[in-house]
């Protein structure tokens, strides 16, 4: 796809019929969680969309987010979205290496200043910048430098969005989220560990379609995907209402597909689209596969008192503190009773 070509022209050039384009649009609208009635609007916008430049930076990450994206539906309608963007820098995917790669980044930044999208996966260690460097540049410096002229930033994955696993207690690298460093650019957090691939492409599609960032929730996540919690959209919700819970992973309830709340499911406090979009080409999602949601799209999900503790349970270390409290209370009780007794004893001898 040439730089100045619109998407419509590009697809037509590829021999895609209008019918094919409409099909592409309705799949895209569905991907963006837009109502089917928005199809005409989407079609028109997409037909005229211009190809944006995208720079993808990977910091303290496991490449799971990239894997999630690239291993999903290739080649699919989403792949067309990828064709529709100009991925100018992605150190896992690009052919160039070393100085050439960095040069590509610099060129893209210069050529598309103020217009390019910056995608980040992984958290940024600020405890000691040397914990993670690329081409001798610390993640912190590279992020600042690249973000400076970006149109917007998409923080892909919980690490980039909220610090994620590296940020988990005790956070040895001092890992922080993109939004902890960059405060003057629009940031779209596409959280999840990894995020649902359709959500990543959905956000790109939205940008491609409307040239703007989608509506975000309080944590900077696209409301269309993160607007409702897993629990509300979970097909096992009726079991929750009926009080039918699996108590262990191999009991009758687990076999019958009952609610996993008591096994630590974080569905009620986790906002993501897993229950509708599902994973592996719409095959399933964790709860459907018999494991509670671990809340991976939420900040600090590693530190919520354990994946297998119900959310209504407390998160704390020991009961010893309570025994200590009982002992302290008893001592105070004895003390105050003795003081009162002494005072009463003194009063006994008197006439009135």
């Amino acid at each position, binding site marked *: 796809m040439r730089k100045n070509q619109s998407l419509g022209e590009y697809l037509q050039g590829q021999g895609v019929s*209008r019918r*094919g384009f409409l099909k592409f649009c*309705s*799949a895209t609208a*569905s991907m963006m969680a837009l109502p089917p009635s928005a199809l005409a609007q989407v079609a028109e916008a997409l037909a005229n969309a211009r190809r944006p430049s995208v720079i993808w930076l990977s910091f303290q990450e496991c490449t799971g987010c990239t894997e999630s994206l690239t291993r999903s539906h290739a*080649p699919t309608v989403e792949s067309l979205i990828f064709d529709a963007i100009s991925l100018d820098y992605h150190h896992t995917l690009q052919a160039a290496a070393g100085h050439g790669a960095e040069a590509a980044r610099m060129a893209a930044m210069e050529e598309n200043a103020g217009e390019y999208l910056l995608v980040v996966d992984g958290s940024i260690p600020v405890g000691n910048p040397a914990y993670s460097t690329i081409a001798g540049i610390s993640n912190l410096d590279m992020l600042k430098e690249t973000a400076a002229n970006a149109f917007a930033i998409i923080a892909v994955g919980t690490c980039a969005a909220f610090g994620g696993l590296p940020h988990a207690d005790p956070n040895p690298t001092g890992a922080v989220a993109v939004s902890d460093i960059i405060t003057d650019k629009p940031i779209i957090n596409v959280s999840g560990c990894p995020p649902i691939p359709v959500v990543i492409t959905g956000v790109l599609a939205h940008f491609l379609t409307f040239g703007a960032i989608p509506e975000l929730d309080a944590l900077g996540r696209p409301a269309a995907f993160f607007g409702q919690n897993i629990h509300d959209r979970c*097909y096992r919700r*009726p079991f929750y209402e009926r009080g039918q819970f699996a108590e262990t992973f191999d009991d009758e309830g687990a076999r019958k597909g009952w609610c996993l709340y008591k096994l630590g499911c974080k569905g009620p406090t986790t906002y993501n689209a897993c229950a509708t979009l599902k994973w592996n080409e719409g095959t399933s999602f964790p709860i459907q596969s018999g494991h509670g949601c671990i809340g991976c799209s939420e900040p600090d999900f590693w530190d919520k008192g354990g994946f297998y503790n119900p959310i209504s349970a407390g998160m704390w270390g020991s009961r010893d503190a309570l025994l200590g409290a009982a002992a302290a209370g008893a001592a105070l009780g004895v003390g105050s009773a003795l003081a009162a007794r002494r005072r009463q004893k003194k009063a006994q001898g008197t006439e009135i």
Partner: protein
Amino acid sequence: MSSLDTIPVTAEVASGNVKPLLHEVRHALKRLANGEDGTVIDLQSIPLAPGEEARIEELLGKGEVRAELDALGPSVVQETSYPGVWLVTHSNTEQVVVGRFIEVTHMPELLKSQQADIEHAISRLEHELES
């Protein structure tokens, strides 16, 4: 995968969303009959339990018309046993379903020849005749 199949997971699961969905279809049909616009329901946006999509398909049944089109992968447009209610399934070139819609309309838009394609057809035909 026989070892997985032997795990006795019974799917007596119901999301409780099938009936409301069918009611929505009923209302959409009424609107259509009154001359109002058609309705498209994106099945991906509705939380469904395993097997429920198949159940919806079964409940709706198969009607007189079935069309297959090949545009960026196959798509199937099936009229259900309730005329006016269509089930549209889009797949990509790898035969993976990428979108599923219930359309309540006289005829799904996608089946009609599109204006842009018609114009393209004219030029192609002219080109053919000229040569």
